[in-house]
């Protein structure tokens, strides 16, 4: 593929951002294989162009809501990979203090208001965040990324309807990776699909090849501009493919290797690299970027491995302001419950 007047600087930045996402997840998968990630991991390998293309158009204080498959979105929004890696390993210093893990990864400091373990729930939350932003009149916008599976849940209708009737500054991005867990969404999605549904709710959709990072970037640029100009909600349908299983442990026997191999040929990172080479960036430069990303994420992983477990008392913080449990023996005080702290069965510090 060859496009005229490519902004190689911007494309190089995408290449780097996508490599960082890929490297982060490869490091996380390595950690998982070593038994260091105690919970589930949903890799976004093959979908990095969506994360990079979307987030390149957002300011740090713009808000982002993501899904269970949210590492890429979170990194691209500017979160610290070491804090993220600590979170995946459940260690002190994790971006959620080790209390959320991969499915609840969040960094409010960069406007990333959380991945979500409930498919589609982030759509209404995003509409609400946009409602607040509009009430506060502070110029921020909200972006909500969800999967093709989420369009079959009620919150899709209720959230988009809400955003449209109140003209809220929110960008809805359907990151359509062809699957919902082991199910091809085409088989369980009636009608023409996500874009038609958005259209029927008064939000005219734009569709884009989700493995072409520049295409995503440009589409989002225009949509974000329209939203910032007060145009109300916008909708982007990003068509891509989930190259891994649903979770890191899903071998995905429900599809052929031919199908997956064909999709690997469309790997957005490779495509971006090829386009950069065609535009005159050397293979060495690209290699250096890849290596730097891998090193950065390996270092993040090593740091996470070396981190201790969270202090046990953290199990009882952040519960609520009033009526939170107190880790103590029984007694006649409001809200107190007896708690026994057992010995962690997994040793901290990477020795597990």
């Amino acid at each position, binding site marked *: 593929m060859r496009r005229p007047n490519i902004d190689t600087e911007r494309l190089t930045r995408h290449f780097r951002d996508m490599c960082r996402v890929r490297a982060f997840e490869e490091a996380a998968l390595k950690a998982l294989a070593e038994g260091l990630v105690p919970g589930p991991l949903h890799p976004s390998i093959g979908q990095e162009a969506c994360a990079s293309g979307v987030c390149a158009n957002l300011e740090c204080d713009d808000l982002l809501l993501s899904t269970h498959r949210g590492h890429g979105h979170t990194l691209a929004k500017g979160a610290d990979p070491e804090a993220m890696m600590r979170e995946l390993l459940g260690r002190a210093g994790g971006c959620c*203090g*080790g209390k959320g893990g991969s499915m609840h990864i969040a960094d*409010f400091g960069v406007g990333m208001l959380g991945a979500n373990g409930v498919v589609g729930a982030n759509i209404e939350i995003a509409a609400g965040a*946009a409602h*607040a932003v509009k*009430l506060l009149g502070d110029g921020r916008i909200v972006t909500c990324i969800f999967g093709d599976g989420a369009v079959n849940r009620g919150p899709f209708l*209720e959230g988009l309807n809400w955003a449209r009737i109140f003209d809220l500054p929110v960008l809805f991005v359907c990151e359509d990776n062809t699957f919902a867990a082991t199910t091809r969404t085409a088989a369980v999605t009636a009608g023409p699909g996500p874009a038609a549904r958005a259209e029927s709710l008064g939000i005219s959709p734009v569709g884009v090849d989700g493995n072409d990072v520049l295409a995503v970037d440009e589409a989002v640029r225009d949509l974000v501009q329209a939203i910032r100009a007060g145009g109300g909600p916008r909708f982007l349908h990003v068509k891509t493919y989930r190259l891994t299983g649903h979770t890191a442990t899903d071998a995905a026997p429900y599809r052929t290797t031919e199908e997956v191999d064909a999709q690997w040929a469309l790997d957005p990172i490779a495509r971006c690299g090829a386009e950069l080479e065609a535009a005159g960036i050397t293979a060495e430069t690209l290699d250096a970027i890849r290596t730097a990303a891998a090193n950065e994420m390996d270092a993040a992983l090593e740091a996470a491995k070396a981190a201790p477990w969270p202090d046990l008392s953290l199990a009882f913080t952040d519960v609520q302001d009033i009526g939170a449990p107190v880790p103590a023996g029984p007694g006649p*005080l409001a809200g107190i419950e007896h708690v026994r702290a057992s010995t962690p069965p997994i040793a901290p510090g990477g020795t597990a």
Partner: protein
Amino acid sequence: MTTMTYLEAGKAALAEEMRGNPRVWALGEDLGRGGVFGQYRGLAEEFGAERIVDAPISEAAIMGCAVGAALAGTRPVVEMRFSDFALCAVDELVNQAAKARYMFGGQSKVPLVAREPVGMWRSSAAQHSQSLESWYTHIPGLVVVMPSTPADNKGLLKSAIRCDDPVVYMEHKDLWGLEGEVPGGDEHLVPLGAARVALEGSDVTIVTWSKTVHAALDAARSLAQSGIAAEVIDLRTLWPWDTETVYASVWKTGRLVVAHEAVTVSGFGAEIAASVGEECFGGLRAPIRRLGSPRAQIAYAPPLEDVLRVDAAAIADAAAALIR
């Protein structure tokens, strides 16, 4: 002190908090025309459609939107119309509002109030009569409040709006018209978590909340005629509940009746009975009696509905039986 209804007290509380804090706003169906019970009447005129938001019939979106709006720096007051319809928004309340602060490691609180009118309201039948407060007491992260008087509806709703936790705020539909004295002034706040001893007594403790407080007070009056001095405790906040006041009363009286409108089985009376049974074991002179609705759906026909109601006579009988 002003005399006003329970409904007006709730409205005054919301209006005062909205005047005091531009980040407070309300959202729900028909609010622009006063809400289904009139408890928002006039507020759209004062605060405009931006802050008294007319929602589509989308309970899930109303609650989910409030979660996002709370995370993004505002203090939404959600109107669920009937607590039964809040069952269309349980993921949003329980999986999202109650968990966001914890699962994100304290990066944000979720200051929202979910107003959920509860209870039997003559012949509203099975889908418009439920009292599911015990559910919410079971959910870490949530505060649960159930006012029984106009004064408390004002002071507790104001406290709920100022609370940084998600609060399930349950007004009783049969109490809207109840009149009472309400302290004036913006600073009439009733603290969350503190019970009210509605009547002092030394022979038996009756713990109750919401509309059943009034039945308990009637029961106490009739018990007094038989020479039995009942202490009536209006719990007001169910989570956190005021164990100190309840335990002290039970240590004093040695007898406890817990009465509520909700189904007895796994109602919040079970939590109180279990806690008191453990903490006041040596002080109990009789078994703890729970009174609630039988575990049956709520019927439409008035006499059938009444079979399911806990009334003053039932409470008085139960209390007297503990002493005999």
